[in-house]
């Protein structure tokens, strides 16, 4: 009877349990739990969390079991509470680094148990530290401009002191109200400065850290800092505004002032000098006869390979002034042997060759001349002295002499002829001397202030030793004039043709500078050496030069015009700084030679002869413009 009763009860119970009732409850073994993550804050302990599956309607318990690497022992988690619910905390004793843990979670209820999937972890790769602590933000003032200094400490659990953990830090900043943070990686340092702050704003700062191989910590709690207002910043803005308005005011005043003058336009837009082309006739152009026009311009034998166009190629710069007494050239030559460049040293620098680079006349350094001039100071006539002084005053004015094939012949018997071939002539104080080639070049280079093409290195005239020349066999009173090739567009220095000027005994020659080709430089063009002889000085202190047949036999092609014509008179200077010469002797109009600032145009002739220079100085300029072959 009792057994029947027990069986009935069991059956009843089973029915109760297993018969689905009206509400649909079902009891089942627990669902599969899942290990979500394991983390270690300091690489000494770690915690694992899991997510339980369904509990099957029955109270379910979970257990965590683990196995260490290469060991068959299964351990159960000893601490389920420290880290909260559904967690297992491994303390220091249970934690081994560099050891593989195989962890499983089991969920069990009355009906059964379910194992989770096992997870393998190595503690060293699951480190996620706590956020940095004691984050302090202060405003530092550095020379009126504030900046933020953020400092912090590593989380107290992470042992960085012993080197067990290495942390790197990162911080982020933003203005209150902004959406985007500005990130800064701080490396291993625990201090960071932030610049470029906005005055008066409030900033939010946060810091976080990470071990070298691990996870970033959470951001630290926000630190707020307010930047105080800085008056000086606004002050500087006002200063800026004041300066700007003053500047505008100045401009307005200036433009008002200038507008009342005609020369405003000239001030802002100076007129561009036009080209001077030899043979160019405006009338022809206006007439529209381009053929005529162009025919005139055409230079035969282009590019010049033979000396046939000698006259077109050579430029001779002559400055002639007539000294009172005659000097023996040889004496001067000896003086010039100790060649030196005396710029300031030349006391009475009667040398009138003031040329600038623009006008591509080259001035020879006259060392001996200075001495010689010193000797002659008392003896020179008023004109020459005045001339020299006058020239000395206008040192920056160019005295340019173009001597074409048509070379003037000095006429004044007592005139001293100073010739210098086209040389870079920077300084006014040049005394005609025989400088060292290199030194003259150097000096020329130093002083060549124009941007013209005739500056050293770009053009072609160089000074050489006269003393070293083998052509010392110059008789007394003879000198050499070196003609420079005016090749404005050619950067190859040309050999200078040197002309020996033989002066008569009554002609005082001051200096000679003879140009040779610069050492080591190529000589693409070979210029013949022509010699010009000073024929006479006429009463008006004009030097008439005559070409002579040179020893070198380079006279082919030398223009015969030299012997026949003498452009020894300066007619005047026109507005374009052109010295106009004419053949008939005419008193040079002093007014005509107003000093002009040399222009940088290659074809421009500048004459800076003032009235003092007057008749003696036959600043010959082939104002007849000529074209240089351009390459």
């Amino acid at each position, binding site marked *: 009877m009792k057994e029947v009763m027990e069986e009935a009860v069991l059956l009843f119970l089973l029915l109760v349990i297993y018969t689905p009732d009206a509400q649909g409850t079902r009891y089942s073994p627990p669902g599969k739990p899942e290990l979500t993550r394991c983390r270690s804050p300091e*690489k*000494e302990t770690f915690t694992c969390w899991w997510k339980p599956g369904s509990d099957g309607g029955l109270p379910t318990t979970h257990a965590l079991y683990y196995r260490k*690497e*290469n060991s068959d022992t299964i351990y159960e988690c000893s601490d389920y509470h420290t880290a909260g619910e559904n967690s297992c905390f491994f303390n*220091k004793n249970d*934690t*081994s*680094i*560099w*050891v*593989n843990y*195989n962890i499983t979670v089991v969920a069990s209820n009355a009906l059964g148990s379910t194992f989770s999937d096992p997870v*393998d972890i*190595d503690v*060293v790769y699951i480190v996620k530290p706590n956020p940095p602590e004691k984050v302090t933000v202060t405003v530092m003032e550095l020379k009126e401009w504030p900046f933020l200094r953020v400092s912090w400490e590593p989380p107290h659990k992470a*042992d*960085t*002191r*012993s*080197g*067990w953990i*290495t942390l*790197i830090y990162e911080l982020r900043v933003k203005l209150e109200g902004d959406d985007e943070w500005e990130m800064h990686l701080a*490396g*291993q340092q625990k201090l960071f400065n932030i610049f470029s702050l906005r005055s008066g704003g409030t900033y939010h700062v946060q810091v976080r850290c*990470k071990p*070298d*191989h691990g996870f970033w910590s959470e951001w630290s709690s926000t630190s707020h800092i307010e930047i105080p207002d800085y008056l000086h910043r606004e002050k500087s803005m006002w200063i800026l505004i004041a300066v700007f308005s003053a500047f505008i005011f100045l401009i307005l005043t200036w433009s008002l002032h200038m507008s009342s003058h005609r020369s405003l336009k000239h001030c802002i837009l100076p007129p561009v000098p036009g080209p001077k082309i030899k043979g160019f006739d405006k009338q022809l152009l206006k007439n529209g006869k381009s053929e005529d026009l162009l025919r005139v311009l055409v230079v035969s034998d282009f590019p010049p390979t033979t000396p046939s166009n000698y006259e077109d190629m050579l430029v001779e710069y002559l400055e002639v002034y007539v000294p009172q007494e005659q000097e023996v050239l040889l004496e001067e030559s000896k003086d010039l042997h100790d060649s030196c460049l005396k710029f300031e040293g030349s006391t009475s620098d009667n040398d009138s060759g003031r040329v600038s680079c623009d006008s591509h006349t080259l001035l020879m350094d006259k060392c001996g001349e200075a001495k010689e001039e010193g000797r002659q100071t008392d003896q020179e006539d008023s004109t020459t002295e005045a001339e020299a002084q006058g020239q000395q005053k206008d040192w920056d004015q160019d005295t340019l002499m173009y001597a074409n094939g048509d070379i003037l012949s000095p006429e004044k018997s007592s005139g001293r002829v100073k010739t210098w071939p086209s040389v870079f002539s920077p300084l006014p104080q040049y005394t005609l001397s025989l400088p060292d080639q290199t030194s003259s070049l150097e000096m020329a280079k130093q002083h060549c202030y124009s941007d013209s093409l005739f500056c050293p290195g770009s053009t072609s005239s160089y000074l050489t030793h006269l003393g070293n020349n083998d052509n010392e066999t110059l008789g007394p009173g003879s000198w050499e004039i070196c003609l420079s090739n005016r090749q404005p567009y050619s950067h190859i220095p040309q050999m200078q043709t040197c002309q020996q000027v033989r002066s008569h005994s009554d002609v005082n020659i001051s200096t000679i500078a003879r140009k040779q080709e610069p050492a080591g430089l190529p000589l693409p063009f070979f210029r013949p050496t022509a010699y010009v002889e000073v024929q006479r000085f006429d009463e008006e202190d004009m030097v008439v030069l005559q070409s002579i047949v040179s020893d070198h036999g380079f006279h082919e092609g030398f223009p015969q015009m030299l012997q026949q014509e003498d452009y020894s008179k300066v007619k005047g200077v026109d507005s374009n700084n052109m010295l106009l010469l004419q053949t008939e002797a005419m008193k040079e109009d002093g007014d005509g030679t107003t000093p002009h600032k040399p222009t940088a145009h290659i074809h421009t002739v500048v004459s800076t002869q003032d009235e003092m220079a007057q008749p003696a100085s036959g600043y010959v300029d082939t104002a007849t413009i000529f074209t240089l072959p351009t390459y």
Partner: protein
Amino acid sequence: MRKMVSMRVGAAPLCAYGQAGCQVPTLAEIFDRVIQQSSRMHGISSDLHSEFEQYFFPSKNLIGTERKCHTYAILTPGDKENAQRVGREQLTGVILKLLEAWGDPLSQFYQSMSQGQNQDFNYYSSEKALEISDMVHELRDGVEKMADKMKLLGVLGNTVGYISPETLVPSSAFSYYKRGYLNSVDHHDLLYCFRRDSNKVRNYLRILKCTTLPGLDC
């Protein structure tokens, strides 16, 4: 992703005896160099390991369950207390043993990779293999110099010497990682082991540095 803390390393040759023409580095400099080198080595090995995991879908990682790394016999401190308790001499000795043990297997690893046994393999991976193979030798030399310097300064006892780990390490370390009936080497296990050992080396070096020269970096 390998994050590296870059440090400036001078190009002067490392000469401990003050030969003419080279600066004698300080112990701090030597420490910095070896730590940086070990960081880099660990980073590359991590990259290689994750590449292997991506491309080769490895079978269940046998390390930790059925297999061991070939350096299993080299006893290494497993937590912070042990590492600090062990002392500098032993720690240095452990580092040297580990580095010595990996020289050969890594060279063979590189050779097997460059010989095209793994045709699908990335060119850059074989470059990395060469790199870690070289680095292991360089680092070993560097740690020796560091030990010499420390002995010179008196911070290290003389018990540290070159101990050949041959007794501790299987003779053919590379073939130790062979598995399967095909007797093919599973590079995945090798890289797993090397990644771990390079991490140990780096950590021990840092502990050495911070206990010998406590400073700003620690």
